[in-house]
């Protein structure tokens, strides 16, 4: 096992990793920018090193500074957390060349799955469904109509060079396709300097479902069930739960099986998450995250496993301690992300915490770096706390979340707590009948 691990991150995930290390008897080194001098992750680690000024690019994204900190403190492994350098293949490579074990998969696997096109190809090869489409740019509208024959309407026309929701149009018939095709092409030419477009199956009310996998260096791969992540605003997850209240168990078992196949096919090693879109019946692989996720907590709650500890054990070369058939799912778990933001305008709200009450009691877990008098910095992402509940069933978990939110008081900054209360009390959430577009409806109503 490792003797000392450097945590190349900050905030709640740095504390999460420090806790796992402490419980495993592993020493910890925190790195921090000058802005984070008084942060809890610095306080809770055994050692700390200041690596740069507040800007992420000069501190938490500063590879030479982090490697240098690892060298002067003599660590034998490094945990990147999520965000920052967690999916940076070059960083993983540099760690390896410095004989520092990177707590994640190999640089090659990060590269393979980091590129969407390559991940899609690998998935297809492994027999995992991907969103059907024209597989490349269309030379003409007739080629488009030909492509639709195989996949059926509705489809979405997308600019090859597009992104961020621009340069796309949903069409539901040949007529609409004919009229929209040239329009999207000229828009794309104007916006991105490239008129090329392709088409893809459009999913009306998509669910965002992800599957947690865990793979050791001895070829063992298991899954730990799914997480329901459809409550999103602009692709930012706000609430996650496990299991999904919407997906039927039979379909979920098939999806989980595909996740394991794909991870096995690429010889994956470490924790990983495979993301799928589903309309309830059909499902399509969209991408893989080769790191610990923010929402790993809900999986921990229903499986009783400590994913960060498992990740460390895998990196140390240990075999998985459980087989697929030993994984049991107990009850229901929900996570709410509390961000330092105006709850309805979503503008960031940094500042000093002037009053704090953290919820507690049975089935309530809080992962946070907050403390009374802490300063929420404007330089980093706005997540300040994760509130996680675990109940014997979804009904109890939901009641518990509403109760816990009512006890959560953070003064001095604005937070998304009022929005989270609205989500929890919405009809859609109560019934579990929500999709990636549900948040738009909830926000519109406010």
């Amino acid at each position, binding site marked *: 096992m490792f003797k000392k691990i450097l945590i190349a991150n900050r905030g709640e995930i740095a504390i999460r990793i420090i806790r796992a290390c402490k419980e495993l008897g592993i020493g910890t080194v925190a790195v921090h920018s000058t802005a984070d001098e008084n942060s809890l992750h610095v306080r809770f680690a055994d050692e700390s090193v200041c690596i740069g000024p507040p800007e992420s690019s000069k501190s938490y994204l500063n590879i030479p500074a982090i490697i240098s900190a690892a060298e002067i403190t003599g660590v034998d492994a490094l945990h990147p957390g999520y965000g920052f350098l967690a999916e940076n293949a070059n960083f993983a490579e540099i760690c390896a060349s410095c004989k520092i074990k990177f707590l994640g998969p190999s640089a090659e696997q990060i590269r393979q799955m980091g590129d969407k096109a390559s991940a899609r190809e690998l998935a297809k090869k492994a027999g995992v469904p991907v969103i059907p489409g024209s597989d490349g740019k269309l030379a003409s509208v007739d080629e488009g109509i030909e492509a639709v024959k195989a996949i059926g309407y509705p489809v979405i026309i997308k600019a090859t060079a597009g992104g961020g929701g621009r340069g796309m149009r949903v069409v539901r018939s040949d007529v609409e396709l004919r009229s929209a095709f040239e329009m999207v092409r000229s828009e794309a030419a104007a916006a991105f300097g490239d008129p090329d477009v392709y088409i893809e199956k459009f999913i009306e009310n998509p669910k965002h479902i992800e599957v947690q996998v865990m793979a050791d260096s001895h070829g063992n791969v298991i899954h730990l069930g799914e997480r329901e992540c459809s409550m999103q605003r602009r692709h930012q997850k706000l609430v996650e739960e496990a299991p999904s209240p919407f997906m039927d168990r039979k379909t979920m078992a098939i999806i989980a099986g595909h996740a394991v196949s794909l991870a096995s096919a690429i010889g994956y090693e470490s924790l990983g998450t495979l993301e799928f879109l589903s309309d309830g019946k059909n499902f399509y692989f969209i991408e893989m995250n080769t790191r610990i996720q923010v929402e790993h907590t809900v999986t921990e709650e229903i499986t009783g496993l400590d994913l960060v500890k498992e990740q460390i054990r895998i990196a140390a070369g240990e075999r998985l301690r459980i087989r697929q058939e030993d994984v049991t799912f107990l009850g229901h778990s929900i996570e709410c992300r509390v961000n330092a933001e105006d*709850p309805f305008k979503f503008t960031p709200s940094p500042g000093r915490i*002037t009053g*704090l*009450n953290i919820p507690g009691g049975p089935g309530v877990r809080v992962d946070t770096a907050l403390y009374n008098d802490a300063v929420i910095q404007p330089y980093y992402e706005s997540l300040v706390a994760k509130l996680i509940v675990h109940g014997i069933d979804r009904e109890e978990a939901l009641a518990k979340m509403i109760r816990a939110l*009512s006890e959560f*008081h953070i*003064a*001095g900054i604005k937070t998304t*707590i009022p929005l989270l209360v609205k989500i929890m009390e919405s009809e859609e959430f109560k019934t579990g009948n929500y999709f990636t577009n549900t948040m738009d409806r909830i926000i519109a109503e406010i």
Partner: protein
Amino acid sequence: MDIGEIKKLIKLFESSALSELELEQEGHRILLRQGAVIHSAGAYAPPAVVSDGPIGQESAPAPTANPAPKTAVEEIKLTGHVIPSPMVGTFFRAPSPTSPPYVDVGDHVRKGQVLCLVEAMKLMNEIESDIDGKITRILQENGKPVEYGQPLFEISPA
């Protein structure tokens, strides 16, 4: 104290780490507060933890819904001698629904004179005045619940 002075005081206060500043001089009184923590200096001040802070947590539910009379009374500044309720119960101004009240505002009362009843566990407890004086205020409504220590009457001592 003029606006200029107040302005200076506020500036000074804001740049300090204080949470509260109260200044009384020459018949003027000024109270400054900052930070979410302190709401009111009285014994009924809510704890820091549930305060809304300057920015408010719009939908954070009000943690306590006290019975109505308490809140109402808290807003009244009591200057005279106060007779508090010695027990939890129901406040009655008269010995029976058809009788006239024991006392009314303006009445002169003697020490030991019965002012009202507080019913607790089906028992009627006579509440007596502990001084001679004139009733200046009746602070609770007939037939409504009272808590331990809640003011019932204000008396101007004779």
